[in-house]
Each structure stands twice: as structure tokens, then as C-alpha cells.
């Protein structure tokens, strides 16, 4: 079929072709890409003195003590990992359950209310969550875990708990989208084969939405890794807390330090002007950027897989 446009449309298309739209879009893309690459290059460049001083022990040494120029980030990497993992483990099951309810069971009107409520929660500024954490969570953790004898209410666990609450809305709403993107015809077919509604959800919708749910969790993880203010307020900020056993519950309910709480702390101000110390701080920022970037890239990759899957199944059937 050849394309023959009616004269009016053809002339319109010819006249309305403002070049400046194209150019301004190109400029926008160029600015975005160069600023991102520029930031990455700057971080790399400024962390060179550190890599010269510390080498690979920057990520393997547990000792961070700037007056003696010891810059090992392992304890902070450990803190960040533990805090994010606690957040994920607590948030994902709840989020998946909530998204199944809203995507599969709620009537459309109610679903809209629930979903917009959840999305509003995702937009609450993190400092608000942080202050709520200071107000309630610290006390709860301190008094609730008395049996385990925590030093104070500030701990890696408190920070993880707070992050779980913070990333819950993000994961819920994205998982809900993933479930909704499974075609309704598949569910009808499953029901037609005699499966119950629950079985259709469990064996048809969930497996197909799985990559999307995983991607949602990774996006949540990305937010958890990068969260600064809220974590800073409740993590305890104790340096060099690297337990012999990484899964020790005592270590988890003790104060610790994460990459972000270090970066948000006073050392950033102190380091300014001292090239090596500053370089170490920039090194931490680079590390954080790489971690978050890795999570986002993985989520993006999964989302592509997810988009391809329904087409494949259609061509198979």
C-alpha cells in the first residue's frame, strides 16, 4: 500500500516543519549526556589521588580514619549492603502482595484510589520519612528489641526498616503496572481451562510479570542505596563497624555507617581543601554512583526482557 496523503495534510506537513524543535531537542539530549559523562569523568578524575594513595584497598580495607589518612570503605559498603538488603527483604513481599491485590482483585474505581494513594506516598520527601523515623522507629527498635540488648535506637536495622517503608510504594506501584501489563486474554484463557482465579494469578499472571516485579525491586534497591537524609538520621554513624560474621544479628542492631551517611556527614565539609581527603570523599561518591547505576541498568535490562516476553508467547501460541 503506497502512502497517498490528501492534499491538505500533505501541504500542512510540508509547511509545519519547524527546524528549531529538532535542534532544541538535540541540544537537550546533548546537554543531558555531556553533563552525565562530565560528572562521571570529574568523579573519576578527582578520585585519582585516592586510588594512587590507597589502591584497591579502598574497597577491601575496613579502616576509615582520616587524620591518619586511612581510607578503607569496606565497613561503609557493608553498612550500605546490609541496610539495603534489610529494606528489600522486608518491602518486597509486602509490595508484591499489595500489587496482586490492587492489580488482580480490586474493582477499577477502588484500584485507582489505592494506586494514587500509593504513588503519593512515593513522592513524600525523604526527610519527612527520616523525621518520622527519629520520632517513632528509633524508640520502637530500642524498646522492642530489648531482649537483644541494642546499644541505642540507632542501628543498621532501624535504617533498613525505615528504607523498607520508603521503597514500599515504589515497588508496589511498579509491580502493579507489571501485573496489569499481562494481557487480560491470558487470564481468560486460563480461566477457560478451568483454573481458579487464584491459580490464574499464581501460574499465569505472576510468572509473566516476574521480570517486571524484579525490575521494580531493583529500582527500589536503587533508591535505598542512594537514600541519604533518612538513613543519616537513624543509622548511628559509627565508623569501622565490620563484624567478623557479616550475618551477625548483633552487628545488624548496632550503629553503623553507610556510604551515604558518610557523604552526608561533616567530613565532606572538612575534606574540602585537603586534596587527598577530598579525593577519598569523591571516591565514595563514585562507588555509590556505580552501585546505583548498576541497579538501574539491571532494572532497565529486565524491563526490556519483560516487554519482549508477551510477544514471544503470542508467536508461540
Amino acid at each position, binding site marked *: 500500500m503506497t502512502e497517498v496523503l490528501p492534499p491538505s495534510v500533505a501541504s500542512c506537513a510540508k509547511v509545519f516543519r519547524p527546524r528549531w524543535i529538532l535542534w532544541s531537542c538535540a541540544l537537550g539530549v546533548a546537554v543531558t549526556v555531556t553533563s552525565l559523562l562530565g560528572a562521571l569523568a570529574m568523579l573519576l578524575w578527582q578520585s585519582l589521588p585516592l586510588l594512587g594513595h590507597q589502591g584497591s584497598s579502598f574497597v577491601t580495607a575496613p579502616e576509615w580514619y*582520616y587524620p591518619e589518612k586511612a581510607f578503607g570503605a569496606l565497613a561503609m559498603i557493608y553498612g550500605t549492603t546490609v541496610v539495603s538488603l534489610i529494606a528489600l527483604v522486608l518491602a518486597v513481599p509486602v509490595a508484591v502482595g499489595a500489587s496482586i491485590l490492587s492489580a488482580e482483585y480490586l474493582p477499577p474505581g477502588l484500584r485507582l484510589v489505592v494506586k494514587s494513594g500509593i504513588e503519593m506516598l512515593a513522592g513524600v520527601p525523604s526527610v519527612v520519612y527520616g523525621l518520622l523515623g527519629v520520632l517513632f522507629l528509633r524508640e520502637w527498635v530500642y524498646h522492642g528489641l530489648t531482649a537483644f540488648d541494642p*546499644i*541505642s535506637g540507632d542501628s543498621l536495622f532501624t535504617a533498613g526498616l525505615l528504607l523498607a517503608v520508603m521503597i514500599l510504594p515504589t515497588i508496589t506501584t511498579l509491580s502493579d503496572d507489571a501485573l496489569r501489563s499481562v494481557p487480560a486474554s491470558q487470564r481468560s484463557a486460563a480461566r477457560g481451562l478451568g483454573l481458579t482465579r487464584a491459580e490464574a494469578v499464581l501460574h499465569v499472571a505472576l510468572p509473566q510479570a516476574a521480570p517486571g516485579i524484579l525490575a521494580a525491586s531493583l529500582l527500589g534497591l536503587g533508591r535505598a542505596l542512594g537514600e541519604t537524609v533518612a538513613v543519616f538520621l537513624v543509622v548511628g*554513624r*559509627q565508623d569501622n563497624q565490620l563484624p567478623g560474621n557479616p550475618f551477625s544479628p548483633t552487628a545488624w542492631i548496632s*550503629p553503623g555507617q553507610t556510604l551515604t551517611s558518610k557523604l552526608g556527614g*561533616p567530613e565532606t*565539609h572538612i575534606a*574540602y581543601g585537603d586534596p587527598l581527603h577530598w579525593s577519598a570523599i569523591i571516591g565514595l561518591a563514585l562507588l555509590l554512583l556505580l552501585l546505583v547505576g548498576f541497579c538501574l541498568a539491571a532494572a532497565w535490562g529486565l524491563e526490556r526482557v519483560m516487554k519482549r516476553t508477551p510477544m514471544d508467547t503470542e508467536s508461540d501460541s
Partner: protein
Amino acid sequence: MKAATLLLGVVVAASFFPVAKAQKPTLRVSGSTTVHPVVSEAAEVLRKDKDLAITIDTAGGSTGGINGLGDRRADVGMSSRPLNNADRKKFPLVDFHATSIGRDAVSIVVSKDVWEGGVKSLNADQFRGIYECKVTNWQELGGEDCRIVFFNKEPGRGTWEVLVKWLYGNPESAPRSNHPEVGANEEVRSKVSGTRGAISFVSTPWADGQRVFALGIQKDDGSVIGATGPDIASGDYPMTRPLFVITNGEPAGAAKVLIDYLLSDAGQELVAKHGYLRLADLK
């Protein structure tokens, strides 16, 4: 359409030029949370009376303020510790000019359970033990059987330097030790009051005797002194410090207005009101 595009273009182009011309320059003050209440109240007065534009922040404490001044991110630094050679070496081009506006003492504070458990004073040796994690239970210090939770101040805080100067002579010889860290005085008070067996140290006005309790200091001869006016003025109390506002070169312009006010009778009243010693009390 064209006019709108043009207008948009003008607005976008204009946004690239600073519009500072129309506004008066803002005096940026940064640094110590200890000096902050005094300067903040003085700024309140000056904003009203002299129409001065002043912003104040306390990011990074005293060292944050000095570095802010050094990097020209602030016009006036507030500091609860004297300038040292490291500061001068870091910013060789800056002519630091410190003006003392009063004096403050640092108090050791404990939570209610420790206070009621019978610990009322400490000597330097005992506190060094706590700082180095060698003394870990209040029983060893005459209190009840309860773990000691020591909240250390973040690096760069003026209060921390006063403490380690008393314990170790100077900040450089403070040993490496890891404790949960706290920042501003208010945060110390809140954490100490909410934790069993807690001990930390704050600028004296925050040791309120209701939420946190100030310990006396045992001198070598066994006598106990507290952070009270006469003992601070005479220099008997070991942990005191001058409070400074710092400028690059002699104070000038808006900074001079602020500092002159702080040194005036009205400004010195503010120093006393917030629990510090006025310059006149010291001589």
C-alpha cells in the same frame, strides 16, 4: 506564536544572567552550633533594625564554618575553637581574623539512669578509659551495673576538640576509637536522654539538669568542680573555650555591622542570655 516564541527566548536567555543587581548582597554566616543561637538572635535584630540580609547555617560545625570562609562559601565563620595551623595551611590566601565574643564551657552529660545510679563526677583518667573503650560498665565508676554507651561528637566539632584537649593535651594525640557519632548539641541531648547508660558532652547551656545531667569534674587533688561562672572565669574548670566569629581580613561592611553588634552591650546580653560568659565576665 512568533511573539510567544520570542518572549520565551528572552526569558530563557535572561535566566542565564545573574539578577543580583536588584538585590542587596546577603551576608552568609556558617559554622558552630554553639555560637549559632547568639548570632542567629543578633541577625534577627539586625534584619529588622538595619535591613541586613543574613543567612546562617551550621553544616559541619566550627570546622565547616572555617572551611566555608576559606572557600568563600561564607562571609563570616562561627567557631567554638581557635584557629589552628592546619586551617591556615589549608587556606594560605585567606587572612583569618578571629574576634572573640564570649566564652563557653563544655559539660559532660549523662542520662537520668546513670545520674540516679550514683555517678556524679568523673576524673580525666576515668573519661579516657571510656573514650578508649577500656571502661565499659558504670559499675567500674561507682554506678549501677549498666553498659556505658558513649556518643562521640563528629570530627570537626569544636566541642570535641575541647574534650580531647582536656583528655590528651591536643587533638592530634587523641587515639583512634570508634563510637556512634552525634552532631549538634541538640542531637546530643536528645540521644543521651533517650538511651540507658549514655554519656556524652555538650556546650554547657544544653546541660539542662532535666533531660541530661552534667557531671562534675574531679581534679587531681580530689576536689570536684562544675561548669559554673566563677570556675570558668578563673580558668579552674578545664574544659572551656572562646567563642569566635571569623572574617577574611578586618571585618568590613555587613560583617562589621554584625560583629560590632555582637560586641555591643546588647549583643553581649545575648551571649549571657544563651548561657555563655560575656567578655566582661572574664576579666
